[in-house]
């Protein structure tokens, strides 16, 4: 059980993030959920790369156990991707706020439906 502690944390974060992503209708909260979800994956990669008592992979006669550095490199890339996604998501949220005056998903949907209803009522001339 204790040996799997890090995996339990990973899965908890993963599910919590995914839940926020699905359950919240606020666009910013959704992005928070997405970030937590993506962060949990960083743990999934990083944790198995660490060996207890292992050092950085620099060849030296004193050490025989090395930790795997590759997951760190991969996750560095994944963090950059995550930041880019979050930045783009926030930028879109700002634009949506400007266009709709709201960042609540249900209000935005209601406004779209209202527009469709008025469009159908008085079809704009060509």
């Amino acid at each position, binding site marked *: 059980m204790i040996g799997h502690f890090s995996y339990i944390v990973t899965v908890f974060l993963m599910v919590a993030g995914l839940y926020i992503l699905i359950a919240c209708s606020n666009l910013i909260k959704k992005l928070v959920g997405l970030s937590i979800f993506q962060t949990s*994956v960083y743990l999934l990669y990083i944790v198995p790369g660490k060996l207890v008592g292992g050092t950085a992979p620099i060849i030296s006669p004193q050490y025989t156990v090395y930790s795997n550095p590759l997951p760190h490199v991969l996750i560095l890339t994944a963090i950059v991707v995550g930041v880019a996604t979050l930045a*783009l998501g926030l930028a879109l949220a700002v634009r949506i706020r400007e266009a709709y005056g709201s960042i609540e998903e249900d209000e935005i949907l209601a406004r779209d439906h209202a527009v469709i209803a008025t469009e159908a009522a008085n079809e704009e001339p060509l």
Partner: protein
Amino acid sequence: MSLAQHLPALQVVLPLISAPLAVLLRRGGLAFAMVTAAAWAAFAIAIALWLQVDSSGSISYHIGNWEPPWGIEYRIDRLNSFMLVLVSGMAAVVLPYSRASIEREIPRESHYLFYAMMGLCMTGLLGITITGDAFNLFVFLEISSLSTYVLIALGRDRRALTASYQYLIMGSIGATFIVIAIGFLYLMTGTLNLADMATKLSTIKGTRPVLVALAFFTVGVSLKAAIFPLHQWLPNAYTYAPSAVTAFIGATATKVSLYALIRFYFTIFGDSLVFEQLPLPEIMLMLSLFALFVANFIAIFQSNLKRLFAYSSIGQIGYITLGLSFDSVHGLAASIMHLFNHGIAKGAIFLLTGGIVATLTTRQGIPTAPTFERLAGLSKQMPLTCFGIVIGGLSLIGVPGTAGFISKWYLILAAIEKDQWWLAGAIVISSLLALAYVWRFVEVAYFRSPPVGQNAHGEASISLLIPAWLLIAGTIWFGFDTSFTVGSALNAAQQLMSNSR
């Protein structure tokens, strides 16, 4: 080393460089020239690579001369050389078109950003196709996804923003699922090179982490490829994106995700695990049938032409997954063929629809949505555009003489091979649904009189028509001369099935 040996790297690097250069140049015209030149160069390289693979077998290119499995390997075999031709070819056709098309749809000061994003999107899609490294595939997937979100958000309608946001959420979930799957595979094998991973997996097949990886990968890619029922992001994204963007992503983005699915199923997991030990063929078959009937049925009742063809895309993806579920050479070949044939037909239709959007403006010169009320009697004003859409539609139905017929023919052949006659019947009946929505367009455009007081609009400009008609000509050409499509697809399917265990 000569330049020819570096073609695999140049395939991705040229579009990648064109994007920041387009931003630095700032001027719309120069940025356009830059990215279009890169797209044409990429197309030429893709054809050269296809010829090379056809004559002398798979190519393995080591990035930075690091030997695989340590370094990143670009591996080109029959399947992805064929996909490279499709992706770069579509980019080479859509980019010249976009010049005139975005004039009306995107503010002039952000044109250069549009071209930069097209360059990045092309890089990402070509990268996913060419790479032989699992994590590299994820990075390219994100490059293409992020640029696609931006491209969709450039649409005029404010609903483009919400469509883009929705796609960002769904797409990121999908991409994260794919990284989780790759993470599990890496944990189990300690390698990221796809070929190396495949050999190491063969001894630990069926262990739980591998099955978990398979599950995460399937769901993640299904989200990105809009496989029914994970398609919710697609109709809005296609409807509100600028026309050139709809044509490009409609013809390539979902297809490349499906390519990734085929690659992982047949090269890495192996078809004995995916299709024999798990009930995946049955699930895939049911979902494909749902896609064929439900999505095509919904398409019939759409009032916006772009949305109609977006739903039709979901249905057509159903044919591709149906072919995969047979787990036979003919079924797989039909899927690969349909990736290509549907790509060019749907690309052509979206380009022509874009011509309608650009021409059919309101009095203030604002482009309008191509709803059926506005399309009434359009064939008299825009005969070439309407006729093109009808031919593209015939290919979606699968009428003999068009490319769509060839892939459906092989699909039915694969169904009969498995003694599933009822499936052959289902394919034909679902084509009738396609006939219904194409007929709806024909009825409105050809047999209704134009609304009273509509200004005469005339045909779409020639720069919009030529690229679209090139693709329409391709649709007819590949309906008669099948040596390229059928030959490549059958070879690719045989190669995949024989290497798969």
